[in-house]
């Protein structure tokens, strides 16, 4: 029985701003406005009050697919952005997202994924699996290479990541305090038209294993072939 690593399926507007303007400074509100002005409004999964100041003191979580929408808007691939936006909006309204919304309110600004998953009965794993599935479906439109793994060493600004398929990959060491030695990470390598690339490192987590299920094991994504077969006319039951 192995633990499956899944990218954290939620993002905040600060991350959207970083992706919208790599290396620069952009206010989170400006990133959200740019999305909205292009017909790509980010649907909130959860609004977390941080103080009694109402809307001025709050954190808002979005589907992590909005990160992809933001990136695609930046490179002006609006067709792809709209396709991903549709999936992001659908997932923001999924039952698993609704189950997470309340739990996020009490989880603090940097929620512990394992605790959040436990508290919600696996809703985080569910949303993460569906999010990964949508990204797989849209992979040809995302212009990225991606993998998940664990940070095994950090030295001189470089982190060595052991991927879930047992490769070792060097990436720029994440600056976030959340992503240290041993942390699970999801890495997106954005291919630029110039021939260069940008590496984005997001948190990942090990999905919950249910001790009471009849057949032990974690979730898995269906293969493209399996999805194609399910897309055919379904067998009638009964």
């Amino acid at each position: 029985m192995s633990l499956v690593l899944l990218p954290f399926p939620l993002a905040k507007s600060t991350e959207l701003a970083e992706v919208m303007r790599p290396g620069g400074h952009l206010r989170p509100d400006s990133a959200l406005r740019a999305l909205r002005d292009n017909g790509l409004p980010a649907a909130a999964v959860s609004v977390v009050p941080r103080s009694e100041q109402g809307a001025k003191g709050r954190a808002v979580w979005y589907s992590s697919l909005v990160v992809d929408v933001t990136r695609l808007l930046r490179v002006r691939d609006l067709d792809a952005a709209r396709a991903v936006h549709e999936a992001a909006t659908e997932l923001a309204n999924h039952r698993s997202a609704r189950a997470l919304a309340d739990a996020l309110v009490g989880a603090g600004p940097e929620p512990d994924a394992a605790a959040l998953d436990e508290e919600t009965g696996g809703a985080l794993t569910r949303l993460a699996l569906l999010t990964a599935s949508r990204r797989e479906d849209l992979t040809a439109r995302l212009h990225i290479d991606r993998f998940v793994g664990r940070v095994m060493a950090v030295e001189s600004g470089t982190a060595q990541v052991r991927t879930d398929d047992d490769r070792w990959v060097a990436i720029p060491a994440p600056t976030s305090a959340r992503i240290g030695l041993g942390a699970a990470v999801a890495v997106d390598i954005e291919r630029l038209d110039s021939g260069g690339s940008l590496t984005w490192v997001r948190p990942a987590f090990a999905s919950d294993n249910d001790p009471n299920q009849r057949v032990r094991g974690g979730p898995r994504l269906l293969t493209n072939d399996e999805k194609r077969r399910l897309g055919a006319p379904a067998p009638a039951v009964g």
Partner: protein
Amino acid sequence: MNLRPFTASEVDTARLAEFRCSTGAVFEDEVEDWITRHAVAWANDLPRAVFQRRALNLVEDDDGALAAVVAWQDIVRIDRDGIWIEVLAVATDHQHRGIGRQVPALVTDQLRGIERDGDELAGLVRPDNDRSRQMLTGAGWVILGRLDDHDLMIGRL
């Protein structure tokens, strides 16, 4: 036949503990062991049981005898929305009486009426479990692939 939810009553608990569905095959022993020793914990495992909408059910024949045990929940093991059949087992004293065909139909009728996120059905069957595979394929299920050393089977409401 009648399908109803398992209750925490002494009667239901005792009937579940005494349920027999194995004729000696290892995979049948595993199912019987899960039903008699783990199914109640599975159904009461909060908060998973709430979010995953777990349901443990008894199927009784016209005389009230326990004919089958069925447990289902929302699909969480794969990236589809619908109902996951955790277990569907016919009691040994009700096997070879056509109940293996009646129970899936009864369950399907029940599932059509419950709140759910999708219309797909999914479950795991050991590759050497010919009887269960035949029961499900007879009800329209197909083998989609493999998951944790089992055949991943898919049906649809």
